[in-house]
């Protein structure tokens, strides 16, 4: 695995900036939804809830977006050199992952100051991060290969992400949805992103967080978001491998 050197592209200052962006978004959302609309007043530690959601979502958005552009953006290399194509996508997701790690440091600093007691179950958090990484990587592979052929994927993905941001319990607490309609709450939590974010809040902040197992006892349904991630990575690598043969002529 020598090709990861591609990741050198970011500068040290770039990382600092990538921290500023989620923090500013966090401040805005906290002001609007936390203090003005008082959405989070029912939830203990709403700010930290919000921050975890934003940081995890931001990684997902960054990894999929850089993944989408990665192959086409490196067309000059693809056309002239023969090296494993997946390295470009992986390199892009790694740089997003480094950003995530830096952001998570900020999250843990907030956690320490917010007076939340860390419980042993917090040790499960890395597993959730791994699941998140796999999900993002799967979509990155899929989108990167698709973008070579269909150049309007980028707009569609932008729209999709906008909608998905609100379909995922990032700003609003899940508990509110549950009181309104249980079915919708279930559907929302079947989305792996929602599952990951809620589970992360569960293990890091409070066991009062609504997770899928609170809503259903069907174990197949409970693990289905995780299964979905594995199916996604399987399909995505298959599709990427298949289409990567022709990247050089199509890109």
């Amino acid at each position, binding site marked *: 695995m*020598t090709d990861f*050197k591609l990741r050198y592209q970011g500068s040290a200052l770039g990382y600092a900036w990538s921290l500023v962006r989620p923090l500013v978004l966090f401040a805005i959302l906290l002001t609007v939804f936390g203090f003005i609309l008082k959405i989070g007043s029912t939830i203990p530690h709403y700010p930290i809830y919000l921050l975890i959601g934003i940081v995890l979502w931001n990684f997902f958005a960054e990894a999929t977006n850089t993944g989408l552009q990665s192959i086409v953006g490196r067309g000059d290399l693809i056309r002239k*050199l023969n090296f494993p194509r997946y390295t470009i996508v992986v390199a892009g997701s790694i740089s997003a992952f480094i950003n995530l790690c830096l952001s998570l440091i900020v999250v843990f600093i907030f956690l320490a100051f917010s007076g939340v007691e860390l419980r042993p179950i917090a040790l499960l958090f890395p597993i959730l991060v791994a699941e998140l990484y796999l999900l993002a990587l799967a979509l990155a592979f899929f989108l990167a290969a698709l973008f070579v052929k269909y150049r309007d994927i980028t707009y569609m993905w932008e729209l999709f992400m906008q909608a998905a941001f609100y379909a995922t319990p990032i700003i609003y607490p899940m508990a509110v949805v549950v009181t309104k309609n249980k079915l919708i709450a279930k559907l929302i939590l079947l989305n792996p992103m929602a599952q990951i974010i809620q589970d992360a809040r569960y293990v890091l902040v409070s066991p009062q967080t609504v997770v899928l197992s609170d809503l259903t006892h069907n174990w197949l349904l409970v693990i289905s978001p995780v299964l979905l991630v594995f199916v996604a990575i399987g399909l995505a690598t298959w599709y990427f491998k298949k289409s990567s043969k022709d990247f050089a002529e199509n890109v």
Partner: protein
Amino acid sequence: MSKEVAIGVDHVSKDFKLPHEKQSGLKQTILNFHFGKQNFEMQHALRDVSFDIEKGEFFGIVGRNGSGKSTLLKILAHIYQPTKGKVSVKGKLVPFIELGVGFNMELTGRDNVYLNGALLGFSYKEMAAMYDTIVEFAELEQFMDQKLKNYSSGMQVRLAFSIAIRAQSDILLIDEVLAVGDANFQKKSIEVFDELKRAGRTIVFVTHSMDYVREFCDRVAVIDDSKLLYIGDPEKAIDIYNKLNFDRDSVRTEAENEKKKDAVERFGNGNARIETYKFFDKNGKETAKLAAGEPFSAELDIAFHDEVKNPAVGVMFRKNPLENLFGINSLYNGQSFGAKHKGDKLKIKLSGVMPLAAGTYLVSMSVSDARSASNYTELDNLNNALKINVEGGLAWGLIASTAKMEAE
């Protein structure tokens, strides 16, 4: 004793789908699918090409632009997948389709060497072992810790070329990258080619330079029109390649002449008109392609539309519209065709030995009513109406000289 094969090319074909219009949107795809429309054209870039390159060979690939040789090189490098057929490569292959691919301007020369190595599939350790010889060859020892953007373009190319040359691969693919660096560096590059050859590295070399082909190549493949035209002896290949280029010139000339026929620049009062003009080679075949130093002939048909007392006919060969090379004129030769009346025809036959060396020339023809060399009325003048290709001959310059040299 059969030699070891480094690259085996087995019945390789490559087709490209060329979309008729830029069609890379989902909407288009769905629409086309819906209407069962195939919105592309198949372009056959390579058709059934087979050959082997032996280990230690310096193998040249030549061909005109668009013949498919670059496609072939990319297939050898596994950048493209062949549509049909198989390519087998034995040993580590390093392609250099273009120098400096993957260089990052923001990184130092040192980092770029390692980055480039990584892209070519070398590990950090392998690159570390090669690093010193690469830098030494590029003569950039003092600059390696500077960012690449502060290099001159010549320095960048030198670095790229050094990586290409010094990377420890078994097979090297090189596409048109030799004309790099200053004179000193070029000389060094040529020496290195010699050295690589002696060291028994397999090299596949795509070029337009017949000098390099002659100097280095053991065997040469000529690709034309997507097919393997010839493979073998370099001198023979050079010959074929030159002929290909010449043929294209003459095809183009004929097409141009055909197009020009209706739009020839002509002037004169129209009392006579050159109706047709034809050139013939020594075998009497009508052509615009003549051989240097060989007999040729021409025919002009002139029709008169009014009284002409002393018609004079002239033909002039020019290198370009301003530079006369040679001509013949009935008036200067003291010939007379007699007075002509309305409705008369005159057929002029012209013959001689083509005195011009290989090249493309313009021919002008005129008929005038002459009282003297300085007092005449232009009746019809076809100015630079025809392009003639001359081929063959040994002379340089414009004239196919018959001068001989002998030792006394």
